[in-house]
């Protein structure tokens, strides 16, 4: 294990002379670098999309948690009694984290759009509003309605704010699409690199034949090709990743607010993934080329 870093250094530094035995493979080289770059670019973008959508879904879910309102319409003298009865019911209902009556100031603020800021709220027969915060999805709204009807006849449950539910579902689905795209891109990268490595090896059959003929061992021949392809894949995907990151940074960040993509990009974990991506691609290239080289070698004596 202590040898590993040395091995890696040697792998990257390579043996300048041994390297020369593999011809510059021209188009397959460009193909590998290019494909690795594009795939890394697309992967980073999908990752950012997934990650943004994930955060959006989380935020909207949080807002949804406060989406239930109970409205008590009752004659002024019964108002307080019914309010505390309703609060009682709510605080003993499973699935509800907390329930709290709005203060007069809060009610006034809510109504401002309709009446203007200078309305005298006490002069109006305004219902009392109770803000309910759910704690998970387990709240049984119909059961709650029945219990409230019994305890506080003037109480009405209003979940009109639930309209954001489908939005959350959509954001979650976009996140899923993002992850699927990443998976697809990873598979494609592996496949393209494998095919490119195979194509290069097939094109270099003569080289491999000559090397075997003059007494080269399989490991020596395979390593020469593997090094080439791994370094190419690493280079390509590093370029693609860097371009994608730069692109995301300079992408105009749009209007502030709760927009969909105003915070398009990564959080900490995403950055880590972005840094690891080129090494992942290099790893794929390493094993693909190694397998292809061994297979080709076995077909020659």
């Amino acid at each position, binding site marked *: 294990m202590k040898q590993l870093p040395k091995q890696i250094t040697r792998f990257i530094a390579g043996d300048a*002379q*041994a390297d*020369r*035995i593999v*011809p*510059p493979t021209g188009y397959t080289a460009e193909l590998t670098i290019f494909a690795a770059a594009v795939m890394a670019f697309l992967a980073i973008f999908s990752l950012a999309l997934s990650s943004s959508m994930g955060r959006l879904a989380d935020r909207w879910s949080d807002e949804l948690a406060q989406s239930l309102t109970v409205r008590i319409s009752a004659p002024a003298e019964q108002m307080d009694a019914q309010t505390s009865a309703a609060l009682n019911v709510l605080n003993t209902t499973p699935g509800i984290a907390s329930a709290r009556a709005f203060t007069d100031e809060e009610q006034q603020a809510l109504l401002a759009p309709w009446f203007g800021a200078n309305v005298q709220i006490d002069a109006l027969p305004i219902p009392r509003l109770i803000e309910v915060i759910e704690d998970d999805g387990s709240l049984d709204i119909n059961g709650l309605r029945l219990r409230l009807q019994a305890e506080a006849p003037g109480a009405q449950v209003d979940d009109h704010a639930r309209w954001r539910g489908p939005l959350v579902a959509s954001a979650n689905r976009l996140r899923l699409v993002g992850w699927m795209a990443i998976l697809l891109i990873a598979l494609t990268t592996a496949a393209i690199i494998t095919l490119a490595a195979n194509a290069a090896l097939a094109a270099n059959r*003569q*080289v491999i*034949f*000559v*090397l*075997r*003929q*003059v*007494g*080269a*061992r*399989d490991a*020596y021949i395979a390593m020469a090709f593997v090094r080439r392809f791994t370094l190419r894949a690493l280079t390509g995907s590093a370029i693609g990743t860097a371009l994608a990151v730069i692109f995301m940074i300079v992408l105009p960040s749009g209007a502030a607010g709760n927009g969909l993509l105003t915070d398009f990009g990564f959080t900490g974990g995403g950055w880590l993934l972005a840094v690891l991506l080129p090494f992942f691609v290099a790893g794929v290239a390493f094993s693909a080329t190694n397998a292809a080289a061994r297979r080709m*070698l076995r077909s020659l*004596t």
Partner: protein
Amino acid sequence: MIELENVAYSYGGGELLSNVSLSIQPGSFHFLTGPSGSGKTTFLKMLYGELIATAGHVRLGGIDTRSMSRDQIALTRRSIGMVPQDTQFLDHLRLVENISLPLLVSGRDTGSAQTNLDDLLRWVGLTNHANAYPPELSGGERQRAALARAVIMSPSVILADEPTGNVDWEMSQRLLTLLVELNRLGKTILIATHDLTLIRAAKAQVQARVLRIAERRLHLAGADL
């Protein structure tokens, strides 16, 4: 030491070679003849681990090639210099690099072989082409380069498949002289050729046995050659 015991070879159809037994002593000089398509190249490839006998045993240094691992074959080849009939090179490397390729792949220092390399290039008449790429060489030049590559490691056995098919008479004498010299240094030499004048010329310089493939069998040719 190379030993063949009841060796047969078939490419899938009928047997091309049957019941071949032979023992090639270290330091001996052999020619192999036979009509085109009789199996000379096939025979040499068996002595080299490129083809494995379909029956019988081919033993190199006492080990049957059939039971050799791929790495063992690679290592064995480092002590066998092969001049193939269809010479192939690494086209992206210069001639000198191609000739020193056996040194490179076996991890030997190419620098120490420098004088050796220069002498060799001079002898095969390729000094002026040292920096050319293989596709820039003429047919005869390629053949000479292949011979140089085969002997650069100073292998104990040299197998040459029609090494003079593309060179003029004078040059073929020069190449023969090189091989005779190496034989005098103790190397085992086996040359497959259809060029009877070459064999005659060699017999004047060295004690050579002539093997002939005819009707799937290996015969020892008489002194009439």
